[in-house]
């Protein structure tokens, strides 16, 4: 049994005493709980509508975000679907599933308990994977506004796609080097994808190949980025005149990532390269 699971088992009784949260509950850092029907943002305040005792009326009050420990937001129904689509590298479906939520819920993105960072992360990866570089960089900037090491790192990697879109390759290279290549999280995979594309523009095929294969070898769990990285690797192989490996990579994309945006073209290219 995993230690973490063990811990969970040992400590669950400590929850005997605190009151449970309902879906619409807001818990402040000092342990107070508010039941709200609606919530909106006003600067650094979250305005919540509290129903008066006896249901005689309601009043709106402002809470500084720093005082909110957690809001039990209802999980967006698209999240599970987006996670499943991400696992298949299906960028277009992820983009469609996350579009509305990410654009509408951005106001509350830094409220503890918000699902926005997760939905935005999935969208960011899908934008990068489908080559929408400018949109990717823009979303990364929004993610960067959330004060957490993970979001900051994700934002640094995502904003690398801005210079990529304007062919400022040197900026991409410098930016990517500032993010750990090995032992990092999905931000590292994202940065390597941007780096690979930048080096491909520079016709540094060996360097590009290294970057793309770093995503494959060290970050296989970054599923959404795999087909894009493999496509980049195939292009680098073509540049290196290694058509056999290029064809193999395209064939891998078509076989392993059939739902990805890269699959149809990869299939054709694999067939084209396989011809004598």
């Amino acid at each position, binding site marked *: 049994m995993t230690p973490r699971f063990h811990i969970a088992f040992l400590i669950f009784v400590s929850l005997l005493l605190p009151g*449970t949260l309902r879906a619409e509950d807001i818990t402040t850092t000092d342990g107070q709980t508010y039941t709200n029907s609606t919530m909106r943002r006003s600067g650094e305040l979250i305005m919540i509508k509290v129903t008066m005792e006896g249901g005689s009326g309601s009043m709106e009050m402002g809470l500084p975000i720093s005082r909110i420990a957690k809001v039990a937001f209802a999980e967006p129904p698209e999240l599970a679907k987006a996670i499943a689509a991400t696992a298949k590298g299906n960028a277009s479906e992820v983009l469609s599933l996350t579009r509305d939520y990410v654009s509408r819920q951005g106001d509350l993105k830094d409220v503890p308990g918000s699902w926005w960072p997760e939905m935005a992360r999935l969208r960011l990866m899908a934008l990068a994977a489908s080559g929408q570089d400018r949109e990717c960089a823009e979303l990364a900037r929004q993610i960067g506004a959330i004060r957490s090491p993970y979001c900051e790192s994700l934002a640094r990697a995502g904003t690398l796609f801005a210079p990529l879109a304007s062919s400022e390759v040197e900026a991409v290279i410098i930016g990517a080097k500032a993010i750990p290549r090995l032992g990092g999280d999905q931000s590292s995979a994202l940065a390597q994808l941007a780096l690979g594309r930048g080096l491909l523009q520079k016709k540094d095929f*060996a360097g590009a190949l290294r970057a793309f294969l770093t995503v494959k070898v060290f970050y296989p769990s970054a599923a959404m980025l795999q087909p894009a990285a493999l496509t980049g690797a195939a292009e680098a192989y073509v540049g290196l005149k290694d058509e056999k490996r290029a064809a193999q990579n395209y064939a891998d994309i078509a076989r392993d990532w059939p739902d990805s945006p890269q699959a149809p073209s990869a299939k054709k290219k694999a067939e084209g390269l396989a011809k004598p």
Partner: protein
Amino acid sequence: MKPPKSILKLILSVIIVGEISLAGAADAQKSPEDLFREGAAAFQSGDYAGAAKSFEAVLGEGPTGEALETVLFTLASTYFNQKDLKKAEEYYGRCLKEFPEGKNKTKALIAISQIQTQTGRKAEAEQTLKKASEGTGDLATRARLAQASMLAAEGKADEAVAALRPMIAGGIKDDITVQAAMAIVEIESKRGHLDEALALLDKLQASGDLVDNPLQLDILAVRIGDGLLAKGERQKALRMYAAVRPKQVVMDLQKKRIDSLEKTIVDNTASLQKNPKAFMDVNAANARLREDQKQLRAVLEQFEKLPDTEVPVRLRQAKAYDELDQKWETILIWESLLESSKDPKIREDALFSIGAAFCSLGRPDEAVPMLDKYLAEFPSGKYASQAGYLKGAVALEAGDFVKAETIFGELISKGDSSAIGADMQFLLANCEFAQGCDPKNPNPAKYKQAIEDYKKYLSKYPDGKFAEECMYRVPLCSFQLGDYAKALEGFLAYDKKYPSGTFGGDCGYRIALCYQAANKYDEVLKQCGDWLSKRKGESMEAEVLALQGDAYAAKEQPDQAAEAYRHSLKLGESEEILKYALFQANTEYQKRDRWKEIGEMFTDFTERHPDHPAALAAIYWVSKAKIKQGQSEEAKKFLASHILKNINDRRKDAVEQLVSQLAQSCSKRPRPSLVAKDGPVSTPAPTPAADTNAAPAPRPAATPLPPYDAEADFARYLDEKNAGDAPLALARLRYGKAQLAGFTKKPERQKEVMATIYRDFKADQLSAMLLAECGQIALEQGETDKAESFFKELLESFPKSDLLEYAYCGMGETSLAKNQPAEAIRWFDDAVEKANADAKLADITFGKGRALMELGKLDEAKKIFEQVAATKDWRGEITAKALLALGDLEEKRGKTDAALQYYQRVYVAYQRYPSVVIPAYLRAADAFVKLGKPGDAAKNIRDMLSKPRLAASPLADQARKKLESLPPEPEAPTGSSPSPSPSAKP
């Protein structure tokens, strides 16, 4: 798992950390609220007996509703902490009974399950937890986790997984789902369900930011990876190993996690200042966080003592990628080890492995520096010999035979005695052999060195694994050197020593070739016969049969030769042997006018090898055979059907050849067969005896045939209707019409139609042949840019075309026209070196001479012009041009006399070429003027203009103008005219 003690400790800690000062001892007057507050204070200070007393007193006051539920639950919790489990269970039970849907329902059920576990009633505990898990919210979820944990501990893996699965149905999104997923991975991996574990661990890795115990994730990844690797599932294992991070990274993550928990505890405690009433919640939360911290610290301490798992995992990854032939991935792994490990052993392995992987990728530029680095750092390392060997091998693989020879030579001279020393000796000889037969830069002298080194191998390693090959290669070198006697001796020796050797087939073939070189055709036939009887079905059979055909042909036995070639054609596989046998058989059949066989052979060839480059040429021969057999109509239909089949395929070079053949067939009225048709030849009826008295019958007059319309005949087979309207088809149709005009002796019409192709179609619409033609026309028209576009398209789109020499030559001429002689020389050289120019060789050589002259390299240019003028095979217009150029060259040197001689040679010997002859007359006139003989100049031009063909040329205008500037023709002296004047009277 031992929950009871821990739970107790935990609850104690929850109570102990509480900080709240409440009122003093209870008295009889106290309100229930005061009593409750006293109980809470006692509870906080660990005085559970006091707390229980106070809470019992509250209960005695008879509270109802929510207050009663709270008191019952609090009292139960107090007894629980007092270890009075019986009473605790009683009150939790009562709480549940009186408030079955109360707010403390789940908490009470969980507590009861703990009591049941502690008192040995595991089955009951499990059921209770199940009930607790049926509720909603965080606690119910945790109850389910606990229930699954109990099931797993009891070995009920299926039930445990069944309890956990619904928890992750919506994905891994938070702490609870992470724990559930980790638990499933743990259970599945232990019972060998690696695929399920892998899928889930993949998801966990994707949600790495949610996993608060990265170390555990790594441990699971290694375990599952090892399991998959043991099952030979490398790709899956690799995905798992990828999750393992460097030790320092994991430790830093763990420390960060511990620090963040500490910060939360401090923040929670600080919040009590503002809201003291939340003491129970805050205490509970902090207790949970402290326990988390404690566990994480313990794991970290343990981890710090462990060896780094990254290195062994990376080594497994490198091995797996290498076995999958994913060399770049292997390189990445080794590079990561070079970055993270300071162990010199790892460094040695990494440097060598990276170099070796680059060798496998055929990338000497990366491999050699890496191997050099290895050799510099580990000159006596365990891979030192191999590193040197690989350096040579990679150079050999990359075709750098000189470099490979140097490397192997140096290593051998150092006396490398390793196991690969023998291999290096063999490869050294191979490097020399390869230099001997390098098609780009053949160096036959190297064969001699190769012989020496193969012999060295044989003397040093007579039983070495390459001994047989060395023995074969020694005579092969002699063969390549043209020393057939020595080669024969060596091949015979090999054949004797290795009668069933690997190279026996090739050796036997070469023995016969040696006899062929010695013109011993009977011996050739004997050797080929032996070979065919012994080795029927082996790969060289077609070559041996072709050789047999050559011997018969040399003996002037065309029937036998043709038969051997036909047999070779049936068995041949390579393009070269097929083409050779096909056309040799054709030659032999033609010697005997066997057009029927020719037709059959080419028909069979086109059916069996429709994609062979000679397939369309074969169609040409089929049609020709039909014509020869008097089947002109069939021939034309046959040609047209094949033209139409390929008319839109610009890759089919021979379409133009077929179109041309069709045009030629249509250019003349069909004639009867030249050869006897098959079938019974009708015996002419006996001529009746001549009646000598009869008057001779009048000879019948020939019936005049109607005029023959070649264009209409051509259109019957190929026109706009059946060719379609694709640009290429239209261009090819026009090409056919132009050819027809040529065959019907209408050169102006031919030029005009060809010009429409060059004018109306874009370069990327045309075939190789039409590009070559159009480029030339554009060049003649002085449209150099347009010419360049046609030639470039030919170079880029038809890199393997036989017509490339036209493109290279055309580009050279374009450069000359643009006054870029140096560039022109490069193109002309490429035409010879890259396109093996043949048809355009005369033009190319002449063009190079012109370029050299423009560069002022007059001596070199002169040599070339002289070569052109002297080559008999090229005699014609190019000879005239070369002479004219030689005249120009002498003129440049100021040698007008010498120049004049060349110009005169042109118009004396090459009157057929007005475009060369007229300039020669003009320049000769200039030369006469320069020499102070204007009269001779004028006479010379008048002589030219007296020739109607030259006078009609547009160039003649220049001559007329020049004549006007020269002195008039001297009047003949009066009375002494040799010829009578028209006015003279007789």
